[in-house]
């Protein structure tokens, strides 16, 4: 409480001081900005100011209007979008300028870094051709000089072989490299403002950190103002001077980062803060602790899942690629084992082997004491009854023409469980278990929210009463608050039904919240494994340490976090003493 008071006094001091000092005109000022698509208003009365060389983050979940604001600033709204209010950029009203006068500003004065690097470059043209478009904005007449400028910029954004990148097509580069290219193209004409729309949401966690570091560095080196759009409060607080929290197109809270992050005043900002896994590692301690007790007593009982020295090699372009290399782990019943690693680390192949969708070259896998190897498809079916999968993206994994009832009922029909009346009862029970009411039975996926869809997917995997559920990035397509709901559902189900989970994720903060044991994978091998708390508090492997460092934890000041972590650690020691 005392610290809260101190903060408030500090805040009011900040406010008065900014009022008294003569302020330079901001570079970008939005005033009462509203955007609507027909009758549907998606941005309401939003105002903010971004000073020269400063950074401001717009935070919100999908549908909060944050990307729409970014596009309104660049005047790249779709035809149906209509913006009212004012967006002043360097003294000119962006919204009222005719297109012919605004277009020279695009690229030259306002740069744009998009969300999904994989889809943001023309796939059938070389990087060089597209880079030339950016270089043309510098008005440099000599083509050779323009090309040299591009290669310089590529080197500046950390691309090792600029000439190779220049001649490549987009599909020949990784996501991280493409995002570097896009950042390079955006800063090449030396804009005064850079608008970055979720620049790292499609990237792995370590790449995410490097890209954000790059953006921060360029912002300082080139004196660029940064308008950062993100859904991640932790990232925003690490990277921006000011935060604007949006919900349903309206500002919930705005102010200096330290103030909004440490002492959010609006209920929504507080909820956002509570839902970020990295900031609340022990949020689900109560639900998770029974699993830890099972883990401690596990030595005497056989493991539910046992993977022993499994290796799988694929042939790609004539070369052998070992996707999974001598991987072993065991999961005691009733606990959650997490497989973490970046794209290409072998997580997906491992779960394909576990589900019997691929056969390992060497090694064996057993589920509930039954060996998977050498089974026919028919024999695997009996294993699948006890082993279900929840897929990553509920927007594509449910047949859009089926009703919820049919979706959840299908496994029962396939395995001919009980009488039709019993099946109906089981469907209702499974839906109740994931917190969905009977009134949703006749709905189709399109009439459900993302969180409801993923609940349906979980209910579908639950309905056969399996022992083991494989969760393949079950929340990566969902907003952070929806993710928190799903995690809670999963953990309560585990506590209630004694389920065993294999949880695949690249989100280490989430793993920290819900798993009991973890295996860290890199290039097909498990580089470190053990109890989640041990690994996270005291990583032995350098790669694990890099992964952990890459978790955005908010306000890049470690001293704020340390006492809290120590307190949590002490708490935990007591819990397991």
């Amino acid at each position, binding site marked *: 409480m005392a610290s809260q008071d101190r903060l408030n006094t500090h805040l009011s001091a900040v406010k008065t001081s900014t009022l008294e000092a003569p302020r330079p005109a901001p570079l970008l000022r939005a005033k009462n900005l509203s955007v609507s698509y027909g009758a549907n208003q998606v941005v309401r009365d939003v105002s903010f100011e971004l000073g020269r060389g400063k950074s401001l983050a717009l935070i919100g979940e999908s549908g909060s209007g944050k990307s729409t604001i970014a596009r309104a600033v660049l005047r790249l709204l779709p035809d149906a979008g209509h913006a009212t209010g004012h967006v002043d950029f360097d003294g000119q009203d962006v919204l009222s300028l005719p297109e012919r006068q605004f277009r020279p500003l695009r690229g030259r004065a306002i740069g744009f870094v998009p969300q999904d690097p994989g889809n943001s470059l023309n796939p059938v043209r070389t990087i060089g051709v597209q880079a030339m478009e950016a270089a043309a*904005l510098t008005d440099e007449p000599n083509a050779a000089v323009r090309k040299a400028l591009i290669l310089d910029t590529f080197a500046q954004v950390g691309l090792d072989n600029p000439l190779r990148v220049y001649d490549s097509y987009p599909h020949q580069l990784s996501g991280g490299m493409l995002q570097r290219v896009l950042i390079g193209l*955006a800063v090449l004409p030396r804009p005064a403002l850079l608008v970055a729309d979720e620049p790292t949401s499609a990237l792995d966690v370590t790449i995410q950190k490097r890209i954000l570091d790059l953006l921060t560095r360029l912002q300082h080196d080139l004196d660029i103002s940064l308008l950062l759009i993100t859904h991640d409060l932790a990232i925003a607080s690490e990277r921006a001077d000011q935060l604007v929290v949006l919900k349903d197109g309206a500002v919930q809270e705005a102010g200096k980062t330290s103030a909004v992050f440490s002492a959010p005043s609006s209920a929504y900002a507080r909820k956002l803060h509570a839902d970020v896994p990295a900031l609340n590692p022990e949020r689900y301690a109560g639900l998770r602790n029974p699993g830890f007790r099972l883990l401690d007593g596990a030595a005497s009982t056989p493991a539910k899942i046992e993977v022993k020295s499994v290796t799988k090699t694929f042939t790609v*372009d004539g070369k052998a690629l070992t996707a999974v290399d001598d991987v072993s782990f065991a999961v005691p019943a009733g606990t959650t084992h997490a497989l973490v690693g970046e794209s290409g680390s072998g997580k997906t192949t491992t779960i394909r082997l576990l589900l019997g969708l691929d056969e390992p070259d060497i090694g064996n896998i057993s589920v509930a004491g039954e060996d998977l190897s050498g089974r026919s498809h028919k024999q695997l079916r009996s294993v699948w009854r006890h082993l279900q999968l929840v897929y990553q993206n509920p927007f594509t994994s449910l047949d859009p023409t089926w009703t919820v009832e049919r979706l959840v009922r299908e496994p029962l029909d396939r395995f001919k469980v009980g009488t039709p009346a019993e099946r109906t009862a089981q469907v209702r029970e499974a839906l109740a278990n994931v917190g969905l009411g009977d009134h949703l039975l006749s709905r189709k996926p399109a009439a459900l929210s993302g969180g409801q869809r993923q609940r349906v997917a979980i209910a579908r995997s639950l309905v056969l009463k399996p022992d083991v559920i494989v969760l393949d990035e079950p929340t990566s397509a969902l907003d952070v608050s929806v993710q928190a709901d799903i995690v809670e559902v999963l953990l309560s189900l585990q506590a209630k039904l004694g389920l065993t989970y294999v949880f695949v994720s690249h989100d280490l903060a989430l793993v920290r919240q819900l798993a009991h044991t973890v295996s860290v994978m890199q290039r097909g091998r498990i580089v470190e494994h053990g109890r989640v708390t041990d690994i996270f508090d005291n990583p032995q492997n350098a790669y694990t340490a890099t992964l952990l460092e890459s978790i955005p934890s908010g306000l890049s000041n470690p001293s704020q976090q340390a006492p809290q972590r120590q307190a949590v650690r002490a708490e935990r020691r007591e819990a397991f003493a």
Partner: protein
Amino acid sequence: MSNAYLTYAAKRLGQAVVVILLAYVFTFVVVSILPGDPITSVLRNPQNGFSEQEIAEIIAAQGLDKPVPVQLWNALSGFLTGDLGMSMRSNRPVSTLIAEVLPSTLILAGAGLAVALVLAMLVAYGTRFVPKKYGQGLLRGFPSLFLSVPNFVIGLVLIHLFGFQLGLFRVINPDSFWATLFAAVALGIPVSAQIAEVLIANLDKEAEQEYATVARSRGIGQLKLFIRHLLKPASLPVVTVIALTIGELLGGSLITETVFGRTGVGSLVQRSVSTQDLPVLQAIVSLGAVVFVLVNLIADLLYPLLDPRVKILGGAKRRPTTTDEPSLGSAKAVNP
């Protein structure tokens, strides 16, 4: 030109040859198992006035007295060496008959394709640049409208309008420039509708892609966006569509030739069908198969060269992974 591509090309070429041979054999078998005996019924038709001895000579010359497999073997080896046999009706080599009419049909089909491409391009361009209030919707309706009008109707309208009313060409001189042009227009319109439909849909799809927005964020105007970014990816599927419309162009040119009174493959087919001149029909059907297969072969061979994303070997393509990421010493050093 990589090794993989050459292997792929050789494989596709081999498949094309097999398809052509099968098409030839299939036509031959269908003709020879048809009920009745069209050959002798033609020869014995009193109107033709052949004597029994002449009939026997013709049958021997055509090899019709031999068993069917032998006939097939002879026909096939002739086909492979370019000898298409003799016409039963005119007693002239089939290859000569076809060579007489083929240029006219090729000119018509080629001009039709050119008209179709230009027209489709104009319509697709228009759907991007004609504002909604000045009839963009009308342009978007173009493909469905002209797909539903048969090309002989278009031909008759064109003849009436430009031939009779405006006097741009004379119907009795079907090989003049204007007559050929309007025949090509009649032939090209329905084909252009198919191409335009695919092109418009693809342009709309490409324009919605994120890269189009990002390109615009670099200050690119609408025209440059269309030419430099949207046109190429949107046109790639059109290559396949063009290959598939070749059949339509050939079939359509037969009808168009009749409407415009041109001498071409169409009139030869018409004559041969009515006189049941089987060697000619067999040759024309095989020729159609050859053209169709060749054009599709060209499209298949062209596609990997046009679209850098298409990987030739069936194997999974190697996605670059995070291990390709540079370690980026500099960025780390600068960031506090």
